[in-house]
Structures are given as structure tokens and as C-alpha cells.
């Protein structure tokens, strides 16, 4: 027999609080911390983006959307975006090609893999500043070993590549240092992905007569999509924000040929103290990064749904 339940009458605090108030209470501390650490600074930044604010001169005028209009028209920012795009495309291709090859090579090693992997990941353990200093030495035009090695490979004593001063080469100095520093990270993620693949899948495919290429194409690669996506997303975000190597190696020079968006934002906001405009540019960067990450996730989800 069904029992009829009669709601109990609310008493005291229960009248004021929402019905399932604990749902809001438990995550509240986290939400407060999030608001303090993330939402408040962004909201503060959005506010300043509507002002012409020179920190050192005490100038603070409301100018509405002018900073945004200026950012769209800013040729230097566009040029910096183009620098980022070139670095991103070349670096990602290099990092993922080399990272995948090295991950496959390490995966195929049965004895001593841990030692080799540990050695290959040394660049990640080195700070970016140390990497920058090391590459400044390695790429010295006259005394750097890189020009010497390239020279020897070309059958000459030395080649006179001005890695930091020549406008055609300077961007390559950033790409090389960045790939060297980040590629082991990609390798490590892909290697972890490879190790996680169930061996029985390979064995079954081998029984069916699959060769190495088929094993890679039809088993490894599809199952590496997840790790590849994670690594791609993280590296993309890092490369959009690229600042430290630029600061250490070229200072954005010569002229502005290696000036990335982040470096330009640093100059505008923290060298020239045009805080309002600098904040606007950094909001652009934030939106761009968020949009790219979101788009990538959507694409991946759709593909997974179709599959």
C-alpha cells in the first residue's frame, strides 16, 4: 500500500534557505577562492580596459571602447601576432614530429628505457632562463658551437649565421631553443600514451598479419589521440604566451621581428606603463587562447561522438 507523504513544515532557517542549500554551501569556499584569484583580477582588468590609464603620469580618463578599437588597428600587435603564428606552426610541427619519433623509439627499447627517458627529459628540468643563457652561448655568431657544427656539416670550418641579429634568422633562434626545451615534454606525454595501450591489441593485430606501419596507423595513432590533444593544447597555449625566451634571447629584436604578442604587451603595459591599453591587449590574448582551446575541445568531442 502506497504511503502518502506530507511535506514537513519549514521551521526557522529552513524558511530562508533554498531547498537544497547544502548544494551551494559545500562548493562555496572553492567558488570564493576562484572569484578572488581568477574572476576578480579579470573583472578588474576589464574595467581598466575602458580607461586611458598611464600608471606613472597619473592619467586616468574613461574612453569607452577606444582601447579595443586601437587594438584592432594596431599594426605592431598584428605584426606580433604574425610572429607568434610562425613560431607556433613551426614549433608544433617540429615538437610533435620529433616527440613522436622519440616516444616510439623509447617505447621500442626494452632494457634501460628509464635511463634513456630520464636523459631525454633533462631539458624540461632546466629552467627557461638557463636555457636562454645556454642558447645565447651556443648561438654566438663567431664563437658559438652551433655555427661551427653547421659549418662542419657543410664541409666548411664555420658559417657566419647571426642568429639573433639577422632578421631572417632571429626567429629561428627562438624556434630552436623552444623546440629543444619543450619537445621532451611532448615525448613524455606520448610515451605515457603508448605505454598505456593494451598489448593484446597489438598481439591480435599481429596474428591477423598486420605489419609495423599498420600497427602504428590503426592502433597506436588512434589511441594516442587523447595524449596528442592534451600535449597539443598545452603547447599551443604556451606558445601563444611565449615571452621568456624572447626576453632572454632577442628582446624582440632586431627591429621587431621576434616581438611576440606577450612581449609587446609587456612593453606596452610594464615598460611604457600604458596600463589601460596593455590590459586590453592582454584580454585579447586571453580571449584568443580561450577560444582556441574551446574550439579544439569541441572539435575533438564531435569527432569522438562521430566515431
Amino acid at each position, binding site marked *: 500500500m502506497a504511503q502518502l507523504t506530507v511535506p514537513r513544515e519549514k521551521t526557522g532557517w529552513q524558511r530562508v534557505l533554498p531547498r537544497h542549500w547544502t548544494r551551494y554551501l559545500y562548493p562555496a569556499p572553492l567558488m570564493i577562492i576562484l572569484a578572488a584569484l581568477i574572476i576578480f583580477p579579470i573583472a578588474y582588468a576589464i574595467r581598466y580596459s575602458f580607461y*586611458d590609464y598611464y600608471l606613472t603620469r597619473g592619467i586616468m580618463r574613461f574612453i569607452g571602447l577606444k582601447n579595443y578599437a586601437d587594438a584592432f588597428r594596431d599594426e605592431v600587435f598584428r605584426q606580433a601576432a604574425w610572429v607568434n603564428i610562425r613560431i607556433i606552426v613551426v614549433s608544433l610541427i617540429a615538437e610533435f614530429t620529433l616527440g613522436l619519433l622519440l616516444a616510439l623509439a623509447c617505447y621500442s627499447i626494452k632494457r634501460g628505457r628509464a635511463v634513456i627517458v630520464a636523459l631525454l627529459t633533462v631539458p624540461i628540468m632546466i629552467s627557461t632562463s638557463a636555457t636562454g643563457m645556454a642558447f645565447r652561448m651556443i648561438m654566438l655568431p663567431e664563437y658559438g658551437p652551433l655555427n661551427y657544427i653547421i659549418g662542419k656539416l657543410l664541409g666548411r670550418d664555420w658559417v657566419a649565421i*647571426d642568429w639573433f641579429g639577422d632578421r631572417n634568422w632571429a626567429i629561428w633562434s627562438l624556434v630552436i631553443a623552444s623546440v629543444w626545451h619543450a619537445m621532451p615534454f611532448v615525448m613524455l606525454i606520448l610515451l605515457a600514451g603508448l605505454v598505456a595501450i593494451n598489448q593484446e591489441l597489438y598481439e591480435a593485430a599481429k596474428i591477423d598479419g598486420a605489419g609495423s606501419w599498420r600497427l602504428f596507423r590503426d592502433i597506436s595513432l588512434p589511441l594516442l589521440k587523447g595524449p596528442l590533444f592534451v600535449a597539443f593544447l598545452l603547447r599551443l597555449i604556451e606558445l601563444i604566451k611565449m615571452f621568456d625566451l624572447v626576453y632572454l634571447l632577442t*628582446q624582440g*629584436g632586431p627591429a621587431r621581428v621576434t616581438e611576440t604578442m606577450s612581449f609587446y604587451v609587456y612593453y606596452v603595459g610594464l615598460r611604457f606603463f600604458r596600463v589601460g591599453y596593455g590590459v586590453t591587449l592582454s584580454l585579447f590574448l586571453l580571449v584568443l587562447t580561450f577560444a582556441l582551446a574551446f574550439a579544439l575541445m569541441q572539435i575533438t568531442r564531435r569527432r569522438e561522438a562521430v566515431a
Partner: protein
Amino acid sequence: MSQRQIRDDLIRAVRDKRLDRRRFMKRAAAVGASSSVLAGALPGRLGRFAAAQESAPPKFNVTLQLSTGETYPEVFKMYADEVKELYGVDFEYTMTAPQDMYQKDMLEFAGGSSSYDIVLFQPAWLPDYAPHLVDLGALAEEYGLNFHMDDALDVFRTSYTTWEGNFVAVPIDADQHNFYYNKIAFEDPRNQEAYKAETGNDLRVPETWDEYVQVAAFFNGRDWDFDGEPEYGVVEAWQRGGYAWYWWQSKFFSYGGIYFDEEMNPLINSPAGVKALEIQMSIVDYVPPGTANFGSPEARNAFMNGEAPMVVHWTSTAKLSKNPESSQIVDSVGIAMVPGVQDGDTIYRRPALPTGWVAGVPKYSSNIEAAVRILEYYMQPERSLAIALNPAAWSEPWRRSSFDPEAWLNQWPDDPDYARAVVSVMEETLDKGVPDLQIPGQDEYVKVADAEISAALTGAKSAQQALDDAAAEWNNITERLGRDLQLTYWTQQFEALKSRGIVYRPELAEGGM
């Protein structure tokens, strides 16, 4: 031993840090000649200083935070022991990279605070720093101090240290650009004959910028020091962050340029600016690889290692290139005025004075009196001289009394001609030199122009295009900061330059290359 000898020995001992200031005073007294030594050896003000020393200074028992940059802690270390004993003051040094000092200080000042009791900064930043510094003049009067600024050369009494009528900073380093050359390159008969045969002219230290280019072209790729290796023609520093601008400035001023006209229209893209940049572009093939990313040390080292026969550089190079630990050309270095432009029968020279360093006391310091007294202690003429003579201090003279030829002869007793040349070049350069632009937002004006000059040097733009773009951006900066206010500040500097005979002279650039 004569009083003069006693004086020389004592000064040498102080300079070499074999004798600290207190012992110097004691020893001077012991020979019964303290006052006469001080009065005779150094300017009369020093005698008064000696008397002032007799009254016990206040003891503060604090540690002062000093923002000295990477370059200048040695200045303060020279007398740190005495300061500790006299005032009970210790020092803690923060050695930020020079290019980051402005940014760090400004961020703190904007929030109404400072981590430092004494800050070092470039005089060009004075418009931005001055509102945050104590008035040293007023406090000197209150505390009965004497900074002896009447002994300072004009430019250091005015634009380097004074803002809107207030004395807010003291000079630490009188930076200036000089011309250095390798005597082997210029004096060896084989080079002289070859140069005569190639150009029809006598080989000499370049007097004009056209000669500078011609000599660089001649030496480049030639084994001019006969060590079996070909060398480069010249070296400059063009690293992003101001260097390309610094090395362009002396050429620009020599061709009759100044920063703006009286209505604040930029003159950097005038014929003077374009000509200066064309000169700079014409040596691109004669400099060592990597010059586009050379800062000050790389350019100096290329010269001191014998890779290039000439360099325009700061006066610290005069001392360092005579030091066997840092230089391979100790016996062959020569110094001259930075080249200029033919102006009738004379050479019109306007060397740049980049950048200079001064020190001030932030209003937000909790040890203002101690900091002001310490600065005054270091500003006594004999200390200024000792600091200028100490190669480790990286500090160039700015007092008249610091150009005492005998003190500099003692610096290089084996090469008195060089010592005399150094003093003479320094004095003339400070007399004719043009200080940095000194208006609010100076850093932005300079960095924008620097990037455009760099674009021309790397072949991305023509000289005219690069400077037109820089001038357009200068106008934008002026508008953003407020044209009327900027014009007010520029007019101050414009009038100060005019009073020293520095005016726009378009006719000097009309000759063509």
C-alpha cells in the same frame, strides 16, 4: 718629502683603497699638515669638510636599502666601512638589471611606496622620478649639509639633478661617448701606405663621420694588426632596448639635429636624422657578426680583444682597455673626440651623453635623514675624485675638481699622454655633449625610435621610412601624454640646450654623402 708629494701619496693610497678615509685624515694630521694638505691638495671646500667632520655625526643604526643596479654597488662599497663607523649605517644592495630599474621603481612609486632608501636612475627619467623624491636642497639646509654642487659642471647642476627648481638628485656617473682606436691600426706605416694608395688620403683618426665610414671600409677584412687573421672595420652596439638609438645619437647631433623643434614637432626624421642613420647603415658590412644584438659589453670586448680598430663607447672603456686582465690592447689604445661634421674650417662635434646615473631618496623611505646624509658624505669632492678614478666603480667624473690632471697622470704613470688625452676628451665631451631626451615618457620615445633605427639597420626599411615611422609614433605618444604638458617640459630642455649653444642646424646635413 714635500707637501705635494705627501698629498699625492695619500690620494693614491685612498684611491687604491690601501688607506681608508679615517686613516687618511689621521695620517694627514700626523704629518702636521692636515688642513694644509686638504686645503692645498683639493678644493678649499674640502677644508670646511674636514672641520665639519670634527663634529660628531648622528648615529642612525639602520641598514639602508640601495638600488644600485648591477653596475654601481662598488661606488658605495668604497666607503661602506667608514659610513658604518661614522653613522652606524649598513648597506644592502639590490642589483637589478639597468633596463628593469625604471619599471621596478615606477611600479612601487605608483603605489606610494619604495623598497629603497636610495635609488639610482638615469637623469632622463627625472620627470617621472622627481615627484617621488625628497627635495635634497631643502633637507641640506635643514640638516646643514653641503653637496658642493657649485663644483659640478653646468649640466650636472641643472638638467641632471634639478627638476622644476628643486634639487632632487646627485650625480653618480657622468656617462659620455668617446671615440677609442687601436694605435697599431692607425700608426703602423704599412697600414698608412696602403690607405694612402687606396684612398689618396692620409690615414688618421676619423675627424668626421664620412672618414669614419671610409676608415672602417679600409680596415674591414684586413689584417691591420698583423697577427695573421683578418679583422673587422669597426664595432658598434645595436641591441634592442636603446643601443641602436645611443649609437645613432652622436651622429644625429653632429649633423645638426635635436629631438624636437620649439613646437614639439619631431626632428628625428629631418635630414640630420636620415643622414645619421645612413652613416650607421653604411657600416653594416664592416662590423663583427652579431653586432645587431651587441650591448655595451660585447662592443667593448670586440674592441679590447683587437677584433675592431675603433669603437665609440663610454668612458669606462678608457680605464678597462688599460687593464691587462680585461684588455689585449693595453699598449695600443688611443682616445679621441667622437667624430663630427665639417662646418666651414672647423669640425662640428656633438657627442651624445647617454645615459648618466644619479641618485635620489624616495619620499617613501623611512630613513630619509640617514639616506640624505650618506649621499652628502659621498658627494665630497675628494670622494668624487676617488670614485671617478676607481675602475671598478664604473663612474665618470662630473666635478670640475675631478678633472685634476695630476690625479689622472697617477692613474697611468707609464702613459702620461694617454692620461692627458683622457682628461681633455672627457672635459670637451661634457662641454659639447648633448644629454638624453628629458621629458615624461622618455623611455617610450626612445624605445620606439630604437626599434625603427634597428629596422633600418637590418634592411627592413629605408632610413627615411624608419625615421618617418618613428616620428609619427613620437607624435602619437605626445598626444597620448598631453601635447601641452609635454611641450612645457620640452621647452625647458629646449631652452637649456639653446643656452649651451645646441640648436637645430639643418644646413649641416645638406652636404650629402
